[in-house]
């Protein structure tokens, strides 16, 4: 079963300050935790892909326009907290395991080593379309 674990910019409690206000050691600990989690998933044969997305300032919204020239809206956007920050794609045996991995991701350490409680959206990926 494939699952997409999604994180958005606003999915962190307000009490957690932006990363530039953490200490360098706290940042290192956080980055190492995320890398170790990916390494664990790779080692267990569950890792498919993990990517961060470039900042919301660089995002664009595109809507097809009848006139033939699409309408492009550039950032920054007031609703940027709802934008996707990154994802993990995993291939696991059960929904329970997907939730377990998401919980681990959510427990990544922040200031004073406490879990930042990032909200993770867990979405099962549907099978591929039938091809001829």
């Amino acid at each position, binding site marked *: 079963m494939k699952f997409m674990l999604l994180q958005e910019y606003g999915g962190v409690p307000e009490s957690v300050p932006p*990363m*530039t206000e953490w*200490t*360098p050691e706290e*940042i290192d600990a956080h*980055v*190492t935790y995320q890398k170790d989690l990916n390494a664990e998933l790779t080692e267990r044969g569950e890792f498919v892909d993990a990517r*961060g997305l470039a900042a919301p300032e660089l995002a664009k919204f595109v809507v097809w326009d009848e006139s033939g020239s699409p309408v492009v809206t550039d950032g920054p956007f007031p609703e940027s907290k709802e934008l996707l920050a990154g994802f993990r794609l995993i291939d696991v045996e059960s929904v329970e395991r997907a939730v377990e991995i998401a919980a681990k991701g959510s427990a990544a350490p922040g200031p004073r080593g406490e879990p930042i409680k990032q909200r993770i959206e867990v979405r099962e990926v549907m099978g591929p379309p039938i091809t001829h």
Partner: protein
Amino acid sequence: MTCKRNHEIEGLLRESAPRALVAVARRFGDFADAEDAVQEAMIDAARQWPAQGLPENPTGWLIHVASRRMTDRIRSEAARRDREQAVAAEGPPVPPGAPAEADEADDTLLLMFMCCHPALTPASAIALTLRAVAGLTTGEIAAAFLVPEQTMAQRISRAKKTVKESGEPFAMPAAEERGERLRSVLRVIYLIFNEGYAVSAGAELARADLAAEAIRLGRIVHLAAPAEPEAGGLLALMLLTEARRPARADERGELIPLEEQDRSLWDQALIGEGRALLGGALARGAIGEYQLQAAIAAEHAKAPRPEQTNWREVLALYGLLEQVTGNPMVALNRAIAAAMVDGPDAGLALLDQLGDTLGEHHRLHATRAHLLEEQGDRRGAVAEYERAARLTKNIPERNYLTKRAARLNASSAEG
């Protein structure tokens, strides 16, 4: 044993394939189809050689098998035409006589010219070069660029189609065009190297291989065009840059900037080779962007400690590089060098002159942050580091910039 044998076969195949491709493309006058045929012959070889032993002449074997496939293809296409049009066939097209014994160096260049054809986008030229010249499989190239194999196969096949549709014969371009065509080739190799040198989380190994491939291609081109100073300059630049690889990231894969690197980890053998090549290229007197960049890398390599860097020389070289390339990114490095010579104010003044030429580029903000930090403007530096961290698309770089901001924030809180 078997593993060593397979490794040997793979190396042999990768060396023989480009020469076989040139011979088959010459004989049949069709680069795109010849590339397919040689790929198929390589697959046959990988299957047969381990069991049957290595042929006496591996290149000849590949040419023979690939040519047979080409002839089969031409026959079956002719047969299909016959059936469809119900016209009498005049027999399969007769391939032109045996290829003239061409110079091997020219062969390599010709192949590179086709793969880096001006009608191709950089991404297509890179993929085609890695397959046809470097001898990588489509799967290996796909893995290095993190795309599905089928996507990469399509990219390569469309690239070959573009080359075919350009109508250019498989022959050396006219002498007056060669300089321009060689510049495209060097550019493609440089892009492959940069792709490999940029640390990218999760894909470090594959990407390190790309840097090695670029150096290998650089050696091939330098050998094929020894009189071209920029070919030597590019190879020197890649070697001098690659020499720093062991020192440029910590054990967690986080970036270490030049001035904080442990210079005892720099690879002195690569530095020595790079400097010798650069000396040879510069002696020819036709200066270009790769030689200048290599000369800057050599200045850094010469300094056992950062404070021993000859920043005046580096500043002068960046000035020349900016004149040669007109690239505003070079101005950022010149600003840093100017700050090292005349203080941060001089560097910041240069950045202000840049105006909007760079737009919202993360490196502009990172450079300004660095110079503001030198100047003692912590608050200004933090804001610029934050901005740079938000704009970069490279995760190790984002982590590095975020930490610079965090460190300054922490020290202002203490002070």
